[in-house]
């Protein structure tokens, strides 16, 4: 039996065949497909080849069209319409629901997304967005090259912890309390005491606006600041805030130039905050009168809440270049920045996290997709080049999503989401400098799928690939 003959048997009628030919023409040759050298475009269906049919299960032969024609859409034109599934018994349904997956794509190793040092307990802590946990290591831990990984000293992990996609960490320098900020799934910042372990409930948690990312604290005023991606805002709470406490102020509005803010750093020397922005934003307009509820109604009954997506101005969205914007700590609502680092000389590319060395007057930036850490003068402004760039194969930096300047030990930590490591360097390291130490959560050669909240997927029929988006 040949492929050409199968067409006629299964399609059954000239109308279907004509439709099939039309769609095949469009799918195979009309957009992206390539004519074989012997073919000529005639505008009419034509015999292009005669090939043996592939083996198929059972008696039913399957025609397997080439490349893009494998989509379910194409399949619709390939078969006659089948009736809806016949009635099946409850036992058959139950058995089918218990069927195991035949394949599972999943990273068995931890993926570090944020890093911070506990200076009084001499520990380093990381959030792990793959396994939903916070891990604590001795600060001087160094995974030997021949070891599979380093086991953490402690691990906060489990259903009660309120830990999922925690994008940033703050460790209280006075007592080692752990502040872990959830991004876009739980709406909570969880606070644990030093030493928390296992499936520990947070000592307290704060209900936050949707999509908080970075955290910074001013210990002098006992204020805690969070960036909010969804609302292009910085919300400031009392450091001890809990539950549904309100922010004491919010920085938000088009004049702030914030756009998809991620990292935040506080400079105690100048009493200023730095915010890194990825660049996409739309306008959230405060209602002329009355209360507003905020994104996902989280602002109901709370003061100083950022104006939410439900008050977004339709079609006001725009893309701006990435930037770092600088404000007085106590700036509120639509206050413009006092400085803006932005432009092609800056090398900013998804500036994801910030950390400040206020003693040397330097600002560290995790530059995720280009595997670099940029360093700017703390008073940099405009389209300026970084004063140092840490980047290169010896650094082992791969998709850095967090940086931490450990001023006590004069070290710089980097969380590398792309290779199961946290790496540490001397403050002031530059170029392709190898790390002083490496903490690995998996084998050196283990691939890193970098899945994090794989919300949607689709099948690329042309390449027979799964497209999976975080």
């Amino acid at each position, binding site marked *: 039996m040949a492929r050409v003959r199968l067409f006629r048997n299964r399609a059954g009628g000239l109308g279907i065949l004509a439709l099939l030919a039309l769609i095949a023409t469009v*799918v195979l040759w009309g*957009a992206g497909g390539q004519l074989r050298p012997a073919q000529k475009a005639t505008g009419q269906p034509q015999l292009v080849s005669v090939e043996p049919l592939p083996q198929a299960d059972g008696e039913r032969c399957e025609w397997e069209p080439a490349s893009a*024609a494998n989509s*379910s859409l*194409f*399949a*619709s034109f390939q*078969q006659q*319409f*089948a009736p*809806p*599934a016949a009635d*099946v018994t409850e036992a058959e349904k139950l058995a*089918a*629901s218990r069927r195991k*997956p*035949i*394949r*599972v*794509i*999943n990273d068995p190793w931890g993926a570090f997304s944020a890093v911070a040092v506990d200076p009084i307990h001499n520990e380093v802590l990381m959030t792990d*967005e793959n396994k*939903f946990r916070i891990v604590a290591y001795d600060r001087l831990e160094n995974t030997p090259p021949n070891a599979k990984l380093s086991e953490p000293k402690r691990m906060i992990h489990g259903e009660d912890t309120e830990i999922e996609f925690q*994008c940033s960490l703050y460790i209280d320098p006075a007592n080692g309390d752990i502040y872990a900020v959830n*991004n876009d799934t739980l709406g909570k910042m969880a606070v644990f005491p030093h030493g928390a372990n296992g499936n520990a409930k947070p000592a307290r948690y704060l209900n936050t606006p949707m999509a908080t990312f970075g955290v910074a604290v001013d210990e002098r005023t006992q204020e805690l600041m969070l960036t909010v*991606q969804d609302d*292009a805002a910085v919300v400031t709470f009392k450091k001890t805030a809990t539950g549904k406490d309100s922010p004491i102020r919010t920085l938000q509005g088009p004049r702030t130039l914030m*756009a*998809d803010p991620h990292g935040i750093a506080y400079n105690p020397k100048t009493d200023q905050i730095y915010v890194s922005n990825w660049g*996409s*934003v*739309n306008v959230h307009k405060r209602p002329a009168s009355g209360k507003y509820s905020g994104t996902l109604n989280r602002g109901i009954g709370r003061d100083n809440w950022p104006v939410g*997506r439900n008050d*977004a101005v*339709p079609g*006001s969205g*725009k893309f701006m270049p990435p930037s770092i914007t600088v404000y007085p700590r106590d700036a509120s609502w639509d206050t413009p920045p006092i400085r803006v680092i932005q432009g092609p000389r800056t090398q900013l590319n*998804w500036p994801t996290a910030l950390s400040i060395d206020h003693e040397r007057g330097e600002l560290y930036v995790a530059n*995720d*997709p*280009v595997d670099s850490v940029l360093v700017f003068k703390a008073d940099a402004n405009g389209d300026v080049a970084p004063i140092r760039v840490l980047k290169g194969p010896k650094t082992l930096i791969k998709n850095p*999503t*967090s940086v931490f300047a450990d001023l006590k030990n004069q070290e710089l930590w980097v969380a590398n*989401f*792309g290779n199961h490591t946290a790496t540490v360097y001397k403050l002031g390291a530059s170029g392709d400098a190898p790390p002083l130490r490496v903490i690995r959560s998996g084998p050196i050669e*283990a*691939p890193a*799928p*970098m899945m994090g909240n794989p*919300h949607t*997927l*689709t*099948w*690329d029929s042309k390449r*027979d*690939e799964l*497209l*999976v*988006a*975080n």
Partner: protein
Amino acid sequence: MAHPQIAAFARLANGNAKPTRSIAGQNSAITRTIHDMAYNPITDEIVIPQFYAQAIMTYRGGANGDEKPIRIIMGPDTQMTTPARLALDPIHKEVFIPLEDTILVFPSDAEGNVKPIRTIKGPDTMLGATALTVDPVNNLLIASGQRPRKGDERAVESGRNGHILIFNRTDNGNVKPKAQIFGPKSKILLTALITVYPPTKMILAGMPSREKSSPNNWVGVWSETDNGDVPPRWMIGGPNQMLRQVRGITVVPKTKEVIVSDKYVNAVMTYHFPEIF
């Protein structure tokens, strides 16, 4: 989530797989979290929504790295507020955007500040729509979401107010859906993403739980001919199996596979399920 990306994996990838390519970076203009995505096999393009910029972005099918979209629909005439999800009709070249009580329709090859060519909105529509899929063969537009709660005592009482609405593909204005699947027998509590397999008229919809992690997660299968409080014809992946927070769904007809992503397990799972193909 710290690192957005569109990663490509070989369909047969298993375990700790390395992506064959990944779209990420400043030029890509993506950000967290990409809530929906479509592949157009006719034009070989990837289409995603971007809710901060209120945009629909189209990439080359083979895009890789820090690559720019080849087209963007955005601007005040689009009327888009928070476009988080979409559905693509590659045959009729249209893209549909659900905005809870509104569905906007654009030409998929449009660019820039364009007006929607159709809008479904109004009290007769019974929207809530948080996700959509299009059946271009049987000419249907299928929405999943939450039923409006106002005055809906039955939904409040049962704690189940998710539904699936079926419209004609070309519906416009304040139209009634052809069918609505909801109610206790349907077992629909909440809904995640949704897809369709036209040859057998099957609708596949993610059924997540209210809890952040629960074994009560599964993929429900109904027919486009169903209407009312209809039990699922099939349940895939649960309940009481591996799924904990189901999200996306796609089907691979040639191998009769249903592929599902799960937020809590942080994984992509492939089920062989020939019954629906």
